[in-house]
């Protein structure tokens, strides 16, 4: 009887507790990881920002440096040429020997000068010193010459010119008279610009170059063509900005930075494109470390949560199990106690006829002692008859007790429900009579025999009828009704006219440990409920304050077949 219960319990509970554990672990881990995730994300974004800012500042600074060095390079030469042009006597610009000396001095002081020339106001190169034969060359149609009408200093774009080598020129104008002027022109190879650019530290994927305002490359670009080719990069470059500008730029779906700045006194714009993502180095380092720490933390969190929840749920499970066992034990204790009470009550009943026998036998002895025996023969026979009747009475009681003892450890049997109810009433007839309770029966006569655990059903009925007996006042009424619901079910109604149960109490009535009685353990109805459910039946209660309470028990006619379904 106990083992199947144990099995069902353990099966049920294992699944239930596993689910509970699973959910708790998941939920706890999830909520423990959320703050970790937030911290990691914030830190990542923060570090990302710092690294990027740092990178931009560094880039800006390097660009400034490079721009500065180019500007310095150009302005140094411009100043020197200006000085030469304005302060050297005029013969230095007409006499080839002197001009040669001037050039040698100049070239010694300033790196990168390829050649030098003097061009008169008509555009004819009157003097030239350099590796090429350019004396007498007419520049009157050259763009730069035309521009010189408006200016005193001019730094040209890089161009091939007559020499077919990319170079640029610095031209200084000297007004000789109101209509006459002379131009001093030096050529510098583009290489020197390239060299200046290489001061900027860049990775192999990165690029730095000069373009003019028409986006013609002025130096060789690694990625976007050689000098004098148009820039193969779609980019808008704002003109004449003194600051270095830095943009984020997507190139081949890869993040890059584009930085540029104009170079003073020249037509050039310094452009750098950084694709090497040096700022990625720290985040990736960060990512690796943080991932390691995160994985470790999550593992730790998971471990701690799993262990603690495991312990917790196991403890809950154990407590629940112990409680169920305690209830099962209480149920057993209850059963034993009711068996004991019934047995004691029945045995007690034997005392009455025994007392009668005792008195009759005593009276007969008295008659022999005190009276005239010869006259008392009839009386004797009458007394003996009475003794024999009492013996019969005793026997009916012992017979009842014997059949009870045989049934004690049996479970299901087939019996008449109405008779079983009468038997229950028989057990507590004393209590009923003591309170002058009027018990009425409304039994359906043609009820089929019911197959179930008679002892347990009787235990429940006894419990409920006992409650009714306790509930009603002296002279109260208890009505017991049986009826067939359908082919498979029988209903038993037990109605009393006691004080009734208020609604708020009614809903707790089948809960364990609930009691309204001062002495009760509160297990009665809870156990009754469990028993009826176990027997495939149902138990309901309805009550109205001051009117009474009705218990309705529905039982399957055949518990075995009902169960096998």
């Amino acid at each position, binding site marked *: *009887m*106990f*083992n199947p219960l144990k099995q069902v319990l353990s099966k049920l509970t294992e699944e239930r507790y596993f689910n509970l554990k699973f959910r708790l672990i998941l939920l706890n881990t999830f909520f423990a990881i959320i703050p970790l995730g937030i911290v990691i994300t914030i830190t990542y974004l923060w570090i990302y920002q710092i690294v990027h800012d740092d990178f931009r500042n560094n880039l800006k600074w390097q660009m400034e440096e490079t721009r500065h060095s180019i500007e310095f390079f150009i302005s140094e030469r411009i100043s020197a040429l200006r000085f030469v042009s304005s302060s050297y006597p005029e013969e230095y610009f007409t006499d080839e020997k002197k001009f040669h000396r001037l050039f040698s001095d100049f070239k010694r002081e300033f790196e990168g000068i390829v050649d030098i020339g003097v061009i008169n106001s008509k555009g004819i190169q009157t003097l030239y010193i350099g590796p090429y034969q350019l004396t007498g060359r007419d520049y009157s149609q050259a763009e730069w010459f035309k521009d010189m009408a408006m200016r005193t200093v001019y730094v040209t774009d890089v161009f091939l010119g007559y020499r077919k080598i990319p170079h640029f020129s610095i031209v200084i104008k000297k007004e000789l008279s109101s209509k006459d002027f002379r131009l001093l022109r030096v050529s510098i190879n583009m290489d020197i610009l390239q060299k200046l650019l290489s001061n900027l530290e860049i990775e192999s994927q990165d690029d730095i170059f000069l373009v003019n305002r028409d986006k013609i490359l002025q130096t060789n670009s690694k990625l976007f063509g050689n000098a004098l080719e148009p820039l193969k990069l779609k980019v808008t470059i704002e003109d004449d900005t003194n600051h270095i500008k830095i943009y984020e730029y997507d190139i081949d779906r890869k993040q890059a930075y584009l930085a540029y700045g104009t170079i003073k006194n020249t037509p050039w714009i310094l452009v750098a494109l950084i694709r090497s993502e040096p700022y990625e180095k720290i985040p990736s380092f960060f990512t690796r470390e943080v991932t390691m720490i995160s994985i470790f933390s999550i593992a730790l969190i998971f471990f701690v949560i799993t262990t603690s929840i495991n312990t917790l749920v196991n403890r809950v499970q154990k407590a629940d199990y112990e409680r169920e066992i305690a209830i099962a*034990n209480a149920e*057993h*204790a209850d*059963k*034993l*106690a009711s*068996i*004991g*009470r019934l*047995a*004691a009550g029945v*045995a*007690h009943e*034997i*005392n009455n006829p*025994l007392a009668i*026998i*005792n008195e009759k*036998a*005593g009276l*007969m*002895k008295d008659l*022999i002692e005190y009276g005239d*025996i*010869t*006259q008392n*023969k009839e009386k*004797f*026979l009458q007394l*003996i*008859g009475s*003794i*024999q009747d009492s*013996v019969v009475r*005793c*026997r009916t009681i*012992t*017979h009842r*007790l*014997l059949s*009870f*003892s*045989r049934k*004690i*450890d049996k479970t299901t049997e087939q019996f008449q429900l109405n008779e079983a109810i009468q038997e229950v009433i028989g057990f507590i007839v004393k209590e009923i009579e003591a309170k002058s309770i009027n018990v009425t029966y409304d039994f359906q006569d043609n009820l089929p025999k019911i197959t179930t655990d008679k002892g347990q059903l009787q235990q429940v009925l006894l419990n409920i009828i006992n409650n009714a007996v306790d509930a009603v006042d002296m002279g109260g009424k208890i009505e017991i009704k049986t009826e067939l619901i359908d082919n498979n079910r029988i209903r038993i109604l037990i109605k009393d006219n006691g004080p009734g149960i208020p609604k708020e109490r009614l809903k707790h009535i089948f809960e364990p440990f609930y009691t309204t009685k001062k002495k009760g353990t509160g297990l009665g109805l809870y156990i009754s409920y469990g028993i009826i459910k176990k027997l495939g039946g149902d138990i309901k209660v309805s009550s109205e304050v001051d009117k009474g309470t009705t218990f309705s028990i529905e039982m399957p006619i055949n518990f075995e077949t009902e169960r096998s379904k």
Partner: protein
Amino acid sequence: MIDKPLVFVGKIIADFTHEINNHLALIKESAGLISDICKGKKSIDKKEMPYVVESLEAIENQIQKSVNFIGYFNRFAHRMDNLKSSFKLSSTVEELFELLKRYSSRKKVSLKYDIPESLPDLENSPFLLEFAIFYAIDSFLKKSKPDTNITVTAKGENGFVKLTVKYEGDFTESINQEIWQISTIQEILSLTNIKITSNDKVVNIEIPV
């Protein structure tokens, strides 16, 4: 788990009713004798009077015995009321032995006990203790030979009452009844703090005071 105690209760009730029925049979016989003496005569012969008185005294004696026996049974039945109560070991053993007399005498085994009155009262389940003792006696009776003894002795020992159920005699080879496993009994007794151990012809029961 409850089935074994129920078997025990069932056996006690069955034996009790049989015993009472025996008593009733005796009463009935005595009454029958008186009835026979009276019937068919105008008056009772003085010579037969001693038989009548004797029979009436037999009835009265029997009634007294029955009442005492019912008393024991009643006490036993109320042992099931609570799983914990205060009780005297000697009184539980006394009533159990009275109720088991029929069982043991059928097996021709004499039950004896010697429980010192000085033992402290126990706070435990008297029913389960009786069940434990019943188990011990029952396991011996199921394989006992006639004209043997089972004795129950008890002594107090540092916080425990130690009860010894001892079988004196040989066991029969032909056992036709299931003897319960001690482990089952131990499991049932785990509801209380009563400990039970057994070896061959001795069962020891330990109850904390």
